[in-house]
């Protein structure tokens, strides 16, 4: 599972960037969080353990274990002093795509912000396209085909065939569309259109590519 490219066996990695130093610090930070969360909780007695007993014990154990991990990193035992390399871009983009899905599929209150419902017809392609931008080689045409085709398929299977109650349309269109042709017909028209569009685009994108490569 581990990939060889991200480890560099250099002897002089600054202490603050070593895998185990950072790892130990993270574990100790989690221990701190647990302790902080359990501050107000009662430890109780042996006959009636309070809700704080186990969390506090865990926090202490974790603190010790984290400290030990950090120590191994500082003292540079084999492998544990490697440099930590993180690629931030792909992670940030994929998470952004998922957040778009979460915030806009149904909309609602998220702390101070409130978001509108956009439904799967909008959020679906959006999530695929945004996530796709995380790849090192982004081909927008192919991505669009995937986005539309997959959304059409998901609408067909989940919303229509299986009747899973997932919001389909943006809120502001919902009543208008439903009133005009009935919501089931609107759903079918939509995934029909998406599917057709995906098929046409597929022909264009891939057909063109094949000609180009021949």
């Amino acid at each position, binding site marked *: *599972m*581990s*990939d060889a*490219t*991200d480890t560099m066996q250099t002897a002089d990695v600054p202490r603050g960037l070593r*895998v*185990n130093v950072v*790892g130990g610090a*993270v*574990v100790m930070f*989690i221990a701190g969080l647990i302790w*902080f*969360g*359990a501050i107000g*909780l009662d430890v109780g007695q*042996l*006959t*009636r*353990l309070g*809700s704080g007993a*186990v*969390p506090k014990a*865990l*926090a202490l154990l974790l603190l010790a*274990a*984290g400290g*030990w*991990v950090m120590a191994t990193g500082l003292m540079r035992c084999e*492998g544990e002093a490697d440099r930590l*390399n*993180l*690629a931030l871009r*792909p*992670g940030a983009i*994929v*998470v952004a*795509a*998922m*957040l778009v*899905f*979460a915030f806009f*599929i*149904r909309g*609602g209150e998220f702390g101070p912000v409130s978001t509108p419902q956009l439904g799967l017809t909008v959020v679906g392609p959006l*999530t*695929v396209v945004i*996530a*796709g931008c995380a*790849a*090192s*080689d*982004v081909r927008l045409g*192919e991505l669009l085909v*995937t986005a539309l085709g*997959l959304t059409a398929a*998901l609408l067909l299977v*989940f919303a229509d065939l*299986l*009747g899973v109650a*997932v919001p389909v349309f943006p809120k502001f269109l919902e009543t208008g569309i439903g009133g005009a042709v009935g919501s089931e017909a609107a759903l079918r028209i939509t995934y029909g259109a998406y599917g057709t569009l995906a098929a046409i685009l597929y022909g264009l994108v891939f057909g063109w590519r094949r000609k180009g490569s021949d």
Partner: protein
Amino acid sequence: MIELFDHLVLGFSAVLSVQNVLLCLLGALVGTLIGVLPGIGPLATIAILMPLTYNAEPVGSLIMLAGIYYGSQYGGSTAAILVNMPGESSSVVTALDGHAMARQGRAGKALGIAAIGSFIAGTFATLVIAAVAIPLSRLALSFTAGNYFALMVLGLALAIVLNGGSVLKSMCMLLVGVAMALVGADPLTGEPRLTLGSDMLYDGFDVAVVAMGLFGIAEILRNLDNPEAKPFAGNVVGSLLPDRKDLRASAGPIARGSLLGSIIGIIPGNGATLSSFASYVMEKRLSRTPERFGKGAIEGVAGPEAANNAAAQTTFVPLLTLGLPSTAVMALVGGAMTLHGVVPGPQVIDLHPDLFWGVVTSMWFGNLMLVIINLPLIGIWVKFLKVPYHLLFPMIVLICCLGIYSVDAQPYDVIQVALFGIAGYVLHKLRFEPAPLLLGLVLGGILEDNLQRGLILSRGNVWTFLSEPLTLCLLFVAGVAVGSALSPTIGRNRRVLAEEN
């Protein structure tokens, strides 16, 4: 023995009709098709497909439900193997070596051995249930808080020995997992605990959500991080399905896994997960080449898959004979049975013997259908890996979001999966293994719960709490497991592993 035979005959006569077999086939098929979608675990699959069973007669509905259940389980394993996206905690272990095999172009073999292993284990577990369901249910009742506590300690000990890396780091992950299990509101008072004031954590961490983030999404991030290393070997290496050599290597693990799973599954409290972890550790221990584990050892797929399928079967025992569902999936199945007029409980076996044994035999049918459907489908699943990765992963992301959302209709769940994806990626970079964390999360709550309860029931006397023979025995085994992990010989093995990494 005659009893066993009578039970099976009764069951088959209740179930065997063309229509019922077709219903079972249909159930297993749609269960597999939906369950295979990454991010849609068995719970979500069954919940989504439950309405399909409404229209049939009770027996037909139940047999279809059995088909859906096994289909969703196998579908979940398929997703775990193909894209490292376990839909529930019991397929986490399958992902370890199964996905490694997929990356080497041996996905077909992994899927094949999972299907074969599951079928053998399922057949064995069905026989076990038919022969001794009733005495077994008494065993489930006799488990005390102390026993549970010790069993959970043993489970956690297994988690430490599971991976090849540092024992210390596995321990850290385990403790974090246990701590996460304690987050959430107290069911009695509604008092939130360790939620740090966030409503998002009021219901605690959902195992499926954490698993999909830590494994599935993190896997995507890792692959993107490293564009040169192709996530999958597009071409099939060797034969598509397991060959004779693979089968020979897997025979032992499947047999042991079936036995282990059948036993652990009966104990209320996520036996399927525990048994798959236990089987993996056992196979690794017994293997002459333990260093292959985690890098595509077929035994590491065969054993746990057999164990978790056998357990998935015997998990029905407490539900059917006592009316006590031991997992969320079982609760859902119990709800569906109620809907069809069979209220699970101690009297089902007396009031509706035909239905009871019908359900038991339909389990076997479900397993059979699974093999029939899936062996041909494997070719298709493997082709699926030929989709260019830059298109495959955005699809996984969307399906995963939709799958999570469809369970509880909570956008927060999707946000959590995303955050755990990042966490899993960072943990990988820091060389922490996520599997112990997950087992800690599954078992931690049961651990604390039983510790607390055991101490109340024994009025604070630690000795009464721990002195039962079974408790002591389990704790002893746990001690041996951890001790052996720390001992020099195994330590050397671990070091060899670490160097190879």
